[in-house]
């Protein structure tokens, strides 16, 4: 029996951490992820878990300490947002190439310039090429469920990659909503003990982590990271299947909502998917065949599977909550267009930008996007490649 509760997204992740009882958590506070290490330190102070909490002076250090602990053989994690992730940048690449399966609870927030504490995906999208697995949540339930699956994916011997479990800052991190929790013993059994094959504190097998690798070896390291990402696809689905057996909740690379027979599709990540689902239902009541594809796993990018799921729709709106300033499309827009090209899918595709810096995204705006797609297909409006939603006039 699952446990009916209500909590915020941050509380949900902190609760998952409590149930997992990891070995080490170094952290430095930053809005809106601060509550996670704050709650975990309370659990430790109350004797509920025996995680070693390391307060550090910056995110560069929190990621360094997380990686150090993990290389030593410990299950380690940290949490951050926005500029905190930016300050970890150098280490993100090191964690991936050193094949350290650390987990990062990322609470998405806009990067500074101008300063802004609210949600967008510019922090994690900027880190999309760092070699980390990235999994996104629509609500507190998914933030919790993804976190419970995170270590299993990251630590799998065929993967051994760091993983970012992302949720939308404030929108889910600070919103109290209903949630179904899993019993402590079931979570513990599911996540299991961390038993690394090689680790620094193993006197029987001395090793080096992160040595110098010049041109004779560097490229092979990168190719191996790529293979690990490929393997992650299989492992993510296996872990999801096992998770479904435990919880009854189904996960994959993405969620399809009324997409089967849809003519018009929105592709989106995170909390805005829920808002879009309400728009889909309202349009379906009017007989409009609207559908949604919500991306859960962005790294590795399941491009072929997503493109296949979209092959029968007439028009697609790809929604980015981050600018890439390529002047040629946002992160999801560019990658998904490439995947559609590989399958020779030539539907009408428009890349939208929404919700940047916490700009609200409403059911009415989602419906307006579907109306755009209808107009493009019927030829009553000229197709624009890029559009911003909710801009001030």
């Amino acid at each position: 029996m699952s446990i009916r509760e209500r909590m915020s997204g941050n509380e949900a992740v902190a609760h998952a951490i409590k149930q997992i009882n990891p070995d080490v958590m170094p952290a430095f506070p930053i809005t809106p992820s601060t509550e996670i290490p704050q709650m975990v330190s309370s659990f430790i102070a109350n004797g509920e878990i025996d995680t070693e909490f390391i307060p550090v002076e910056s995110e560069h250090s929190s990621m360094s300490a997380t990686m150090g602990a993990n290389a030593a053989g410990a299950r380690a994690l940290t949490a951050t947002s926005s500029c905190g992730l930016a300050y970890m940048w150098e280490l993100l690449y090191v964690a991936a190439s050193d094949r350290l399966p650390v987990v990062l609870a990322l609470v998405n927030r806009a990067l500074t310039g101008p300063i802004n504490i609210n949600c967008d995906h510019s922090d994690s999208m900027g880190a999309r090429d760092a070699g980390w697995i990235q999994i996104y949540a629509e609500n507190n339930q998914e933030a919790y469920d993804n976190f419970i699956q995170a270590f299993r994916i990251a630590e799998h011997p065929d993967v051994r990659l760091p993983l970012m479990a992302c949720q939308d800052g404030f929108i889910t991190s600070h919103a109290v909503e209903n949630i179904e929790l899993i019993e402590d013993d079931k979570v513990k059994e599911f996540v299991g003990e961390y038993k690394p094959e090689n680790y620094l504190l193993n006197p029987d097998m001395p090793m080096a982590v992160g040595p110098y690798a010049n041109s004779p070896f560097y490229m092979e390291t990168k190719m191996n990271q790529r293979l690990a990402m490929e393997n992650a696809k299989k492992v993510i689905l296996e872990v999801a299947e096992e998770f479904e057996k435990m919880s009854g909740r189904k996960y994959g690379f993405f969620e399809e909502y009324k997409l089967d027979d849809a003519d018009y599709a929105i592709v989106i990540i995170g909390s805005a998917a829920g808002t879009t689902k309400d728009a889909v239902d309202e349009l379906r009541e009017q007989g409009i065949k609207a559908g949604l594809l919500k991306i859960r796993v962005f790294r590795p990018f399941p491009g072929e599977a997503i493109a296949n799921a979209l092959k029968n729709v007439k028009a697609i709106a790809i929604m980015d909550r981050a600018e890439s300033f390529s002047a040629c499309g946002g992160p999801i827009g560019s990658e998904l267009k490439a995947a559609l090209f590989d399958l020779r899918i030539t539907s009408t595709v428009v890349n939208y930008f929404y919700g940047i810096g916490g700009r609200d995204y409403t059911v009415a705006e989602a419906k307006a996007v579907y109306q755009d797609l209808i107009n493009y297909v019927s030829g009553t409006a000229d197709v624009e490649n890029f559009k911003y939603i909710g801009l001030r006039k």
Partner: protein
Amino acid sequence: MKKNIEIRWHGRGGQGAKTAALLLADVAFSTGMHVQGFPEYGPERMGAPITAYNRIGESPIRVHSNIYEPDYVVVVDETLLHSVDVTKGLSKSGGIIINTTKSKEEILPLLNGYEGNVYTIDAHYVSMQTLGRYFPNSPMLAAIVKVADIMDQEVFLSHMEASYQHKFAKKPEVIEGNMNALKMAFQEVK
């Protein structure tokens, strides 16, 4: 029929409007409802206008946007009436509850022609009588529960008592005062 009740809270940073919204979500959850309680953060500082929201209903809530057409609005600080359009989008069949010493007749001209129900409560008086200090959020919470008929008042009080016992585990002396504030607010909201 609307699927969910939507409530918008207007307060100033430090007055507990966000806490009240989260407490309302909490107590509605305890009676088996689907809930959402969330703040909208602007500049985080004492005294700045803040907004918080509740969605409460029988079915799961998926939408994650702010609330633009609320059924009810709760104004924790009446000085906001001069600077914030608190009745914007407010349903005529719903209502607004304002923490004020003024009468409805005195308040109405400040509501931009709002034609729905207007309720007032002097949360300062209630708070000083029951707690001896000014914490408007408990009285305002009881006021919205009564006005919007979110749940039975006795059920509300019993769940709130449990909630306060948890929240004030280290300050049990304030539980009785808060409970009295809720009960008095039921009588005082007009």
